[in-house]
């Protein structure tokens, strides 16, 4: 029996045609996407994660479609696979902040209960920053090198500021499916449909900080504040969580990522390096305005409590 026939039989489809062989198929119940899992443990974690989030009734999610036998995954000759609905329309966050906020708060709440993974909080040290610069080829374009070295100083300062903020104990950090961007929010039948990434689970708030940063860039400071107020209204996250988010936003991930990319681009491609620096600059500015808006929001919360 071919792969397609096997799938149709297992999931009870009467009609099924490949749109992208092995990846996407059209059925009488809509377009479905196949996800193959090389790591069974990871697959099991995601099954558990999505079921837990789904049980909270926050919004629609890309949960694992059950087979005709009620299983959430299917084993075939190539290994384990899961099947998911495909939704392509992007969710519009404007004036619907509460829907997305419910998902963010709900994911954090589930994450605080998700134990038993080897996930560790991503760590950045000053040495990582220095090493990233050290690795650049010695014949790197002098202008590029000059900018990188000037930025390194401020990147170290950013890291220093992050380190002055109180850190939560490792065991108290949530373990979540990493946020990858605003595009995770899709819309179907007028409702939010959240597409989880399926990546290695992440401990802590690094990707959530990135998500909020992107949100801030898209919605502006006002929009961000509305969104944060909505998240806060679910009373899942406390000040110590918010400070963790702030810590992550302060860590200059974009610097190290750019230095790595410049190294990979090679010294003979300064134009590419200039473009990478421009990208870093934009992201740096996004981080800067987010950190400012977010910290002012936390300050505002503190004032309310004090009064």
């Amino acid at each position, binding site marked *: 029996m071919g792969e397609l026939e096997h799938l149709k039989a297992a999931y009870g489809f009467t009609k099924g045609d490949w749109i992208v062989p092995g990846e996407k198929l059209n059925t009488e119940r809509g377009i479905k*996407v196949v996800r193959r899992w090389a790591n069974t443990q990871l697959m099991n974690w995601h099954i558990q994660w999505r079921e837990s989030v789904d049980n909270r009734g926050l919004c629609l999610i890309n949960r694992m479609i059950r087979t005709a036998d009620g299983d959430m995954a299917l084993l075939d000759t190539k290994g384990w696979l899961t099947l998911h609905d495909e939704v392509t329309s992007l969710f519009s966050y404007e004036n619907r902040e509460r829907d997305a906020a419910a998902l963010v708060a709900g994911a954090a709440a589930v994450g605080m209960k998700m134990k038993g993974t080897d996930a*560790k909080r991503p760590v950045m040290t000053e*040495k990582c920053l220095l090493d990233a610069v050290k690795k650049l080829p010695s014949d790197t374009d002098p*202008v590029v090198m000059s900018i990188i070295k000037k930025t390194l100083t401020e990147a170290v300062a950013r890291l220093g500021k992050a380190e002055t903020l109180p850190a939560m104990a490792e065991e108290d950090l949530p373990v979540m499916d990493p946020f990858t961007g605003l595009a995770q929010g899709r819309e179907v039948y007028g409702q939010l449909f959240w597409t989880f990434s399926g990546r290695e689970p992440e401990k802590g708030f690094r990707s959530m900080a990135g998500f909020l940063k992107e949100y801030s*860039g898209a919605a502006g400071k006002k929009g961000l504040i509305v969104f944060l107020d909505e998240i806060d209204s679910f009373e899942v996250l406390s000040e110590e969580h918010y400070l963790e988010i702030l810590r992550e936003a*302060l860590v200059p991930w974009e610097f190290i990522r750019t230095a790595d990319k410049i190294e990979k681009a090679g010294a003979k491609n300064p134009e590419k390096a200039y473009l990478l620096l421009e990208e870093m600059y934009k992201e740096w500015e996004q981080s800067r305005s987010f950190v400012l808006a977010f910290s002012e929001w936390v300050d505002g919360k503190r004032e309310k409590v004090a009064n």
Partner: protein
Amino acid sequence: MANEQASTLSFSIQEAVWLNRGQEIDSVMSLELEPEIAIEEAEEHVTVKGNLVLTGEYRPGKEVDATQQQRNASLSEQVSFRSIDEVRISEEGHGEIRHPFPIDVTIPRSRISNLDEVYVNVESFDYDLPGNGCIELQADLAITGMRGEFNAPANEDSEENRDEEEEEEEEYVEKVVTEDDLDGDRTFHFEGFRPPEWQQPPQQEAEEVEPAVRSEPAAEEQKISNGTSEKQAWQSPSYEQQEEQQEPLSAVSGNEQPHAYDQASSEEEEEPAEDLYAMRYEEETFGQEEEEEYEEYEEPAEEQPRDENALYLTKVLANNDEGEEFSRLRMCIVQAGESIETIANRYKLQVSHLMRTNNLNEERVEEGQILYIPTRKTSSASS
């Protein structure tokens, strides 16, 4: 009856520049005051407009009471950081000063015989450090190439004529000081203004020729950070590994490594701890003469729109001098271990030239001594 002679409009400025928090000064290493000024010719008047730009290098002081500052500061003050184009620490760990003093002088066209002879010169300047984060600057400026007009003795002077003259005098020099609209804790104020020497009446009323002083928002340091359009960003993925695809869009294998930096840090090799700055500014690695690089550094052009050029930052940070139009005065504070030869070499000058400029009788300088560095006077202003 009018008497014509080449003349100079001289005036002094006295300003206080406060550096941002975290930019306290331990000692000043060099200061330079350079006019970045354009001369515009209109039908009835000529405008000398631009900035006197104070640049220099200083050794940052230790953060006094940093803990206390942290304790008193709000969270947002504690965590705010600088934009990349605000970074002013050189690769040797020295702080960089850059502060524009706006200048706007309007001169009646009739007072200028030849526009090509108009120069703005910084004749002298000096500074004081009243507090760690403050530089007090005093400078004498001169606009050359003007035509002096002196009326004959007042035997024919009617009341009307005098009134007209006074009016003319008042509009003769309009000095517009544009208030610095940078950070709230950076201030300077206009304190001193002297009417043109040639116009100072021999008798009295020197004070009456007051410049019109008004404030206007300076566009100079408009932060490019404000330029991000809110709409565009809705579509800009900006964090995590962007090249990875979303699960529902295509099938992917499950062994991504999202925490590359975590791994990097856990795979740290056992290397001796290195001094940050020592590593950061390894000259042999980067083959740059930092001093030169610093001197060539120049700020972005005013009001350059952020999205105009994709390589904005690169240009901003890598810009070289493009034609010096005015003379400038530069000073250097002798550091420990420096000799007149090292300083002359640094500025590519002859020792004798340096000695002459500074009226030195012997080839010996001491730490802390101020040396004036002669610089070229190039072309005159363009209209």
